[in-house]
């Protein structure tokens, strides 16, 4: 019997040598004269173990990792002989880090061949769409609304209400737009699901389309994600061939088609109205709201615009029912969140779990602390616009409201860990600098405020009238927070103010420290 070996093609695995490992496996198999089938999957999300290679056995898939090309020959012999190996991790599904997750959205990621529609269907794919087609629009809206699903891009707006608004709008054309402009540092869940289970995104968008009566959809993917662009394009072509896109989708009377559009390196295009401008072929300048995209969106037509993970949650909700999803979570944060553990962390990767897990559990217990082995000093949650939290706030549960109550945000679910060598003045300066680089320029608090912010923090760093300039930065932050048009200028104060509040000692150094500073 042919050995079936699984090697990820996920960008994070490829970046640490997965392609070389796959090639080496082919060579060794040929040398040993053993027939093998190498299947390129997505990533399971245990990034510190990448490249993680699996072999199918009667007991399940056995994993090895991290495998370098030099390990391949001995790993292959262990696979063929079912012997021991220092890199052997046991049955993949039984690895504790994976087993303690609740994978509703990422259930198939790393398991199936993302290029194969048959594989997707064999693992429960398109069950959500089938049920959605039998339910009709009103019942779908009820399901999505009662699941409690909120926008996973960061804003947390109820998805069901957004869809309902578009479904009630009258227009000759409506659009579905998937925001795959995942620019936040520390986040990679959108990339992983697009590369590892792209049909799921297509299915979610298709469910939205039949609900609101849209016939055309766009996936706007950032140009920094070439692997995701390739995976989505391949999946769209396969779905078109399989009758899941185009006319009469899934044997119904509905039509829907999809197109990938690639961004061009502008962070602000992750903001939904800026993204719509970009899709229309213009500068990514933020639009004033109202009108909402639901009424006046792409090309002026009613548009559902959601994050990748929001669409990707819909198939489960439709297939298993709203309750199955809403049973997970806490408070008004229902279901699961694919959390991304990143930066200086020992066990980094994708950890999907119900809302309610604490920040401390995520960083210390699941993440295992830092990979440098030094103490964790700060974590930034929610990307470049998210607050820096100290250890004192590690009891905060992962929940939209709990983070907001502590002047933070969960954003898109990224957690970046810093050890005690971090200089929080530098991080605060960077937050302002990044805003200055990426500001679309439409509103003054963001465009000018960010540049003045960099200058003022630099004065603080050089010890110039520190207390006056600290007060000035705080005042400036308030102006940006309340006077900016979108989240870029409006949320840049979060990392800055949290650094000032929780890590004050870095900004007002003791005299000895002052002399040592640059």
């Amino acid at each position, binding site marked *: 019997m042919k050995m079936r070996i699984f090697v990820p093609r996920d960008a994070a695995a490829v970046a640490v040598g997965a392609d070389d490992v796959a090639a080496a496996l082919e060579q060794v198999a040929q040398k040993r004269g053993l027939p093998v089938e190498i299947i390129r999957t997505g990533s399971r999300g245990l990034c510190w173990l990448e490249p993680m290679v699996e072999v199918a056995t009667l007991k399940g898939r056995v994993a090895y990792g991290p495998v370098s090309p030099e390990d391949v020959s001995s790993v292959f012999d262990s696979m063929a002989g079912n012997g021991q190996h220092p890199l052997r991790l046991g049955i993949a599904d039984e690895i504790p880090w994976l087993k303690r997750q609740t994978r509703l959205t990422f259930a198939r990621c790393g398991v199936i061949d993302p290029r194969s529609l048959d594989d997707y269907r064999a693992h429960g794919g398109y069950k959500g769409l089938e049920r959605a087609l039998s339910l009709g629009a009103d019942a779908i809206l009820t399901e999505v609304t009662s699941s409690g699903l909120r926008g996973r891009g960061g804003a947390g707006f109820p998805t069901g209400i957004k869809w309902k608004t578009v479904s009630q709008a009258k227009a000759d054309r409506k659009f579905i737009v998937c925001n795959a402009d995942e620019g936040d540092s520390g986040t990679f869940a959108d990339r992983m699901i697009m590369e590892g289970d792209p049909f799921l995104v297509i299915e979610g968008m298709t469910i939205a389309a039949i609900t609101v009566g849209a016939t055309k959809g766009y996936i706007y993917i950032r140009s920094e994600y070439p692997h995701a662009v390739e995976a989505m394009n391949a999946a769209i072509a396969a779905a078109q061939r399989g009758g899941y896109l185009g006319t009469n989708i899934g044997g119904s009377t509905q039509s829907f088609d999809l197109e990938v559009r690639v961004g061009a390196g502008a962070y602000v295009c992750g903001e939904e109205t800026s993204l719509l401008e970009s899709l229309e072929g213009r500068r990514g300048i933020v639009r004033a709201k109202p009108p909402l995209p639901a009424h006046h969106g792409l*090309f002026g037509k009613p548009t559902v615009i959601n994050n990748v993970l929001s669409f990707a949650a819909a198939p489960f909700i439709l297939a298993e029912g709203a309750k199955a999803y809403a049973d997970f979570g806490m408070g008004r944060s229902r279901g699961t969140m694919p959390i991304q553990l990143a930066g200086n962390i020992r066990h980094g990767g994708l950890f999907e779990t119900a809302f309610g897990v604490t920040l401390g559990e995520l960083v210390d217990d699941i993440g295992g602390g830092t990979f440098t082995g030094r103490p964790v000093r700060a974590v930034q949650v929610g990307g470049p616009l998210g607050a820096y939290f100290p250890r004192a706030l590690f009891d905060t549960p992962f929940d939209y409201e709990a983070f907001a109550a502590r002047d933070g945000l969960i954003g898109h679910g990224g957690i970046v860990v810093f050890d005690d060598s971090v200089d929080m003045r530098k991080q605060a300066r960077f937050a302002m600098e990044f805003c200055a680089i990426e500001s679309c320029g439409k509103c003054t608090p963001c465009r000018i405020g960010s540049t003045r912010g960099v200058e003022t923090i630099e004065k603080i760093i050089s010890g110039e009238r520190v207390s006056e300039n600290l007060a000035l930065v705080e005042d400036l932050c308030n102006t940006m927070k309340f006077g900016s048009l979108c989240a870029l200028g409006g949320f840049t104060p979060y990392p800055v103010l949290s650094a000032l509040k929780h890590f004050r000692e870095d900004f007002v150094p003791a005299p000895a420290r002052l002399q040592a500073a640059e």
Partner: protein
Amino acid sequence: MTGIHEPWDETRGAEIIAEHAGQEGATLVILHALQEAFGYVPEAAIPMVAQALNLSRAEVHGVFTFYHDFRHKPAGRHVLKLCRAEACQAAGGDALAARAEAKLGVSMGSTTADDRVTLEPIYCLGLCATAPSAMLDGRLVGRLDDKRLDALVAEAQR
């Protein structure tokens, strides 16, 4: 990204523009296609795009200059992008960026005098759990350290 690019040719440019001009909101699509073919967006192409899409030159120029990706002149033979965002900073990215600048003798965002290497910052490749990361001519590299970075720089200089 880099690799073999065609020299600018007006007829070829017109072909590329015509190929995509029928799409809705085609400006970015066309600019990407032009850059893929020629390695940059030649200034002569801007009025051609404007003409094809019934836009003003100013509008197309505005789009071209808004986005970080579009180049107004060709890059070096190789493009090395280092991630400068927070997750990579947390994993030692600042020191690596300084090292790359020192090795190449250029600052971020510029090209070596021999036109061999363009060194650029990039804000997040989505490889934040295998940080720090880089991209050399479209190839991703994670878990960068001094040794890996030196190898990448040497490869780019070849």
